[in-house]
């Protein structure tokens, strides 16, 4: 039976929770794979190697930078989950700031911390087989990927814009019909255009689409009334480092 391990790095646990959230399918998953390591679900831990490792979170400490190599070595297929693991997450905001200054502002004893100056995606450290984007990931994409691996086929993980799915779903475009800002045209699909389906613009939590046109998107955002600061903040919400180039952000 396929063994599955779930690993956590710097993250909020929300993506792992998506697996537990697959209530209807969870028993079927449990029936097809042996869960060898999933601390959020069970204290029982089996030794590696593992057929599939799901990795949540970004690399922010020297110890984690070591640990991810051990996990890679013990895993046949390694899949990263979510904005933290695929793009460094919200905590990658530190990459353009002074971490020592942050630490002294937040912690009474910053000297207890052993942290890196950056938050980096897993793929910056080891080879990654598949990346599931989003904050949090889409549970449909997670199940698609697990079922694909079980069947020995390639998962369907398109990299085109959110707009494709927005139109396939018959949403009314918030940019065109309401003049609101939306990152859908430059953001990778996978969420099923859930934000526009609820009448609000996409915030780009899946990170950039395959060929984003940053300057053209900036024109749209300005036309929706956003200032340069607003635009910078919008791109910095979930996947600051992944969007840096699209945002024309040098840092």
């Amino acid at each position: 039976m396929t063994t599955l391990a779930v690993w956590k790095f710097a993250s909020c646990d929300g993506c792992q929770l998506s697996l537990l959230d697959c209530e209807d399918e969870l028993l079927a998953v449990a029936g097809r794979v042996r869960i060898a390591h999933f601390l959020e679900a069970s204290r029982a831990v089996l030794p590696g190697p593992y057929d599939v490792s799901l990795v949540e979170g970004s690399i922010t400490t020297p110890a984690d930078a070591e640990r991810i190599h051990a996990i890679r070595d013990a895993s046949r297929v390694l899949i990263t989950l979510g904005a933290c693991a695929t793009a460094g997450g919200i905590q990658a905001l530190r990459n353009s700031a002074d971490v020592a200054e942050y630490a002294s502002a937040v912690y009474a004893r910053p000297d207890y911390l052993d942290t890196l100056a950056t938050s980096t995606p897993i793929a910056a450290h080891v080879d990654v087989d598949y990346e599931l984007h989003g904050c949090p990931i889409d549970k449909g994409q997670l199940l698609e990927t697990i079922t694909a691996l079980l069947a020995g086929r390639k998962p369907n993980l398109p990299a085109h814009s959110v707009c494709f799915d927005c139109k396939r779903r018959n949403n009314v475009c918030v940019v065109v019909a309401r003049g609101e800002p939306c990152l859908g045209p430059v953001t990778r699909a996978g969420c099923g255009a859930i934000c526009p389906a609820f009448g609000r613009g996409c915030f780009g939590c899946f990170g950039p689409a395959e060929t984003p046109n940053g300057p053209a998107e900036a024109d749209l955002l300005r036309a929706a009334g956003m200032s340069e600061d607003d635009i910078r903040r919008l791109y910095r919400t979930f996947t600051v480092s992944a969007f840096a180039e699209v945002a024309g952000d040098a840092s």
Partner: protein
Amino acid sequence: MTSADPPRLIGTDGLGALFTVLRERGYTVVGPTARDGAVVLAELASAEQLPSGWSAGTEAGRYRLRRREDGAVFAHCAGPVSAKTFVHPPRARLWSADRAPDGTVTTTGPEAPAKRFAFVGVHPCDVAALGVLDRVLAGGEHPDPIYTARRDGTFVVVAECTEPAATCFCTSMGTGPGATSGFDLALTELLDGEHRFLARSGSPAGAEVLAALPSRQAGEGDLAAASAAVRDAAAAITRHMPDEPLPALMAATRESPHWADVASRCLTCGNCTMVCPTCFCVTTEDVTDLTGGHAEHLRRWDSCFGLDFSYVHGGAVRTSTASRYRQWISHKLGTWQDQFGMSGCVGCGRCIAWCPAGIDITREAAALAASRGEPSGGAEP
């Protein structure tokens, strides 16, 4: 009554009766309705859901619903949903396969649609678009069974256009604002004096439905008012395609420097192809379930603006935005003609209004025409 029969006049109560008559005949009525800030096409339960008193103000990259005092029902144009959504759905299952415990596999073809659609209040450009889809999806050697199962036996009530939007250019493409063919029933909304509709049948089925509606004879004045409304609509259309053979224009401008200009504005977001009532491209994917005993082969709308669209082993052929925009406009206005003997564009203006970047197929075509003779853009886009 046949299509040669004289037109009739129906009142606003006639629309409610039309819904009843169509439903009695087993149709699922699809028509315009105001939802989330736009007039969309949707399955409607009654005539009350029609967008009475709404019209749309459109511009490149912009669409706003506008309230109107006259209670006009069919004054909408260029909404984001076209009849394509119903006859060529965004997602469809081509087949599924199940493996029994003993290893035998059974396959099932596409699900037969449970519904027969009556499209009520679609405009002439949309009827023309259905004609294009008929040619593309059903007119070749291998008719698409998903399309034909949904399209065969549809009933079409066209609403002649009396309120074109600023993005419309059906007059350039010869598809409107009047309705000439492809419908079972044609309505012309008249707002001078009493709110009423001139109704004429275009098929025996249409004549039969019209005979079942409360109607009265149309007078000379009604006929004149209907012609004037359509003539005024034609005169109100301000957007035009260059007045020259478009396939030749597309062929002559393959190396135009203008492709780089449009590429700087285009987001490759795919909205234009998705809203286009004739763009038919799909991709397929296989899904399996967790038991491993069930597989499905699905298809979804695709767009030539995606990178995977031109993927052949080793990589995508159209990597630049310029090459993707060129593929789209060249197919719509040029190569469609070679492929299907007709234009791929009916002039509905949806791609203009629903392009978030406001890229306008008529302006791009004009800019391409103007760029002829300029030095080429250099590298092949």
